[in-house]
């Protein structure tokens, strides 16, 4: 059960370069790599378990392209 209510995690597909750091940074398995490609041509991560998010914001802070934003909480 998540302590904080995060309403959405936005992944901006036009600037994401698919490095996979967010998948590694999240300790609760919120992200997974998908097979979908963004505007840059890289594979995008996707949010699969939003209910696990504790709003530690490590994904947002670690993202090298400022492409993740955690909304709410």
């Amino acid at each position, binding site marked *: 059960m998540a302590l904080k209510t995060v309403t959405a995690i936005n992944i901006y597909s036009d600037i994401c370069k698919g*490095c*996979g750091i967010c998948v590694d940074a999240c300790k609760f398995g919120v992200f997974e790599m998908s097979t979908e490609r963004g505007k840059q041509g890289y594979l995008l991560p996707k949010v699969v378990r939003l209910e696990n998010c504790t709003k530690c914001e490590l994904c947002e802070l670690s993202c*090298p392209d400022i492409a993740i934003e955690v909304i709410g909480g």
Partner: protein
Amino acid sequence: MHTLAKKIMREDQFPMVFCPGCGDGTITHLVGIAIDELGIIDDVCTVGGVGCSGWLASIFNVDFFKAIHGRTLPVAIALKLTRPSRKVLVFTGDGDCAAIGGNHFLHACHKNIDLTVVMINNQIYGMTGGQVAPTTPLGSTTPTSPYGKIEPALDLCKVAEAAGASFVSRWTTAHPKQLLRTLKKAIMHPGLAYVEVITQCPVQSGRYVHGSGDPVHLLKWIRENSLTKTQMEKLSPEERAGKMLIGDFLEEIRPEFTAKTYQFMAEVQASKKASVDLGR
């Protein structure tokens, strides 16, 4: 686009110029948060050198100066002295600060002038093709050291401390929260604040020094090899080889160069005026 990016960054800089997985983007974001939370966007001006690290200066929607290779600090000193209310942020790389601008770095630290120097240490000359830098670890093979580097890596935090900087700190991109806290302190510190950030370079140092171009693997390597002082003290001297010490090493208030210069100018003008009055 991210709300913060819309607020304080240039929209035409997105998507960012960095390679996929490069830590420079993380540092940009953290410096952006620090500027936004401190509410100093109108006073900030940035100086960038040559190298991938120089790009950071141009991303923020503030006045910026792109200096020639290694000469970020003389420019920053001039910007600070001409308007002391400015918060000057200097983005410099390890080749820029430690090798080519080493002399300027020593003298800026010696002056203890109110600047924030963010030194981005990717352990190699990233932009120019992976040449060996003073901060490259011992034994690394690069295009200019094909049989391994002979000398150990230069510890620039110790250099800064010895030269007279009054805020010295080293963090990595694998510690974003600690780095953000330190950046906020460093920007508000009256005196030269030197913050070294060890970052991953998947394209050059990943390929040549660590043997992997995967940013996740490189971040794991950074996390495992960067230790705090307490963790470091538990290890034997043999085990310490190749490990990087992280933490806030020094923070003290000492007389600052800009304030001293303006005070000195006022004193000289007053004494001149007095002597002219006496002459009459």
